[in-house]
């Protein structure tokens, strides 16, 4: 995130210093919001359905009251749970192991910190604290999203661009799928309708930036990392 933030900060300062307009298309606006919502709901369901269910199941199996404070046996129960998912993903090759590892690190580090502090924590308390952390973060993200996107109080403005479906299809033919193809088609349509030079800025190295030469050659659209946006305009 740090590395990404500094790249976006460079774009922000370039935009402000050189008075360069930064636009977000409706398609990007909607996708961003949906992605944040999806991530938030995903994390919530992992805490509520997966972690809670497993911890309680193991306690019941071992005849340990749910109200007893958590200890290292609960951490080992979580280790089994995460290992199960890692193995399932490895054997079926469905999905990425990344989310599991990330959530595993987050939960176990939090519990470890509580144990190090000598805190007495029940399963209920542990789960509530995780949810509180998520709600605190997601509500802050909503503030930032509204500030930047909904109310456009910073350096970007929303552009309502009618996307030509033929352009979107031609982008898909280059191997760029929806919704990225729609974002790129919006930029191409905007460039064509305004006659202004447009630089499409993204941090998506794997599905967009790796095809930047193709996009330049076949769709006449410059794509780059936010670090370099300014230099493509001059």
């Amino acid at each position, binding site marked *: 995130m740090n590395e990404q933030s500094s790249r976006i900060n460079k774009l922000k300062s370039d935009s402000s210093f050189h008075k360069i307009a930064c636009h977000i298309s409706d398609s990007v606006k909607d996708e961003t919001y949906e992605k944040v919502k999806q991530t938030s709901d995903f994390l919530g369901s992992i805490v509520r359905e997966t972690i809670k269910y497993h911890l309680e199941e193991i306690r019941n199996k071992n005849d340990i009251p749910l109200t007893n404070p958590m200890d290292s046996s609960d951490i080992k129960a979580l280790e089994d749970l995460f290992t199960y998912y890692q193995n399932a993903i490895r054997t079926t090759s469905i999905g990425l192991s990344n989310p599991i590892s990330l959530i595993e690190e987050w939960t176990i580090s939090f519990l470890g910190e509580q144990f190090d502090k000598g805190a007495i924590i029940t399963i209920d308390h542990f789960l509530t604290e995780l949810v509180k952390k998520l709600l605190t973060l997601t509500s802050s993200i909503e503030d930032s999203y509204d500030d930047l996107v909904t109310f456009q*109080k910073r350096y970007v403005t929303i552009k309502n661009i009618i996307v030509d479906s033929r352009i979107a299809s031609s982008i898909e033919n280059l191997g760029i799928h929806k919704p990225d193809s729609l974002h790129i088609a919006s930029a191409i349509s905007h460039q064509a309708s305004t006659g202004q030079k447009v630089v499409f800025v993204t941090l998506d190295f794997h599905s967009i930036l790796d095809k930047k030469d193709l996009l330049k050659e076949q769709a006449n659209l410059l794509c780059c990392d936010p670090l370099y946006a300014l230099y493509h305009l001059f």
Partner: protein
Amino acid sequence: MTSSIPSTLTSDFSGNALRYGLLDIRPVEVVEIVKKCGMKFRRIVRGFESLTPEKSYADMILSQDKAILGTIDIPDRFDVEKLADIYLKRSVSIYENDAEFKKVVEEVRRKERPLLSFVRYAIDRFTSEKDTYLEVEADRFLRSNLPLSFYNKLVVCDNTYYDFLGILENIVRRHEFYATYSRNFAMYSKHMARMKADVSPIIDQMDKCCFLYSRLKKYVLIWNSSDYKQIFNPDFLDIKNLDFNEFTKVFNEYNAKLKETREFLLKYNPEFLHKAIDPEEPTANLFSKLVRLPSSSLVLER
């Protein structure tokens, strides 16, 4: 299990409490005779009196609850009048038992406490209880099958309410400062009238938002309660107990008003939504990594 016991200043009751303390007042000048060193002195003190002493806190709550219950579908197992009565009794009981809040409101009326102190009190009170509100939502989430994003929208309202108090504080501080240095009572009254004119639209806006926030919560809680005892804290909030169309309507109306209110507050403080998120904080770090993964990887099946 955390029970939901709001104080008089939670967002459910916000506008009422602030209206009661800030708008339902009139500045007055009181002449007092004070004895000092055996001599009598006349002292003129400026304070406030209630504009509508007969209109009680209970009246305001009852009219709000009736308005809420009149705009949502209620299951046949409940009687609207009885529900309104239960809500009223609880709100009045919270108010009556909230000795600290009552004292502060009465002090404003009896001129001992300036209005700025009242707003600051509201902020301090909200700050000290903010974690409890969060805990209530977290606990409800864990005892439900509604998505986390639903609870997030409720927390956003709590946060907006907190920011609204900060905006109110700035307005009241400015007017009270000028009023304090007024040469005469007429000027003093004029400054107070200006303050009321300035804070009134903000309180009205926040009230409308809190009304829909409270309506949404009541709708979800009532439809998940099997009897009157459960209506404040049902055992489990099941999305299947809600009529999808009605829930969507109640939720969307709340969400639209929340957005409108946030935009409205931006006119008073353009920076209030501009808050930095620490990228090193573990939850933020986790989230930033997950949000960049393809949507298809954010599914877990056992």
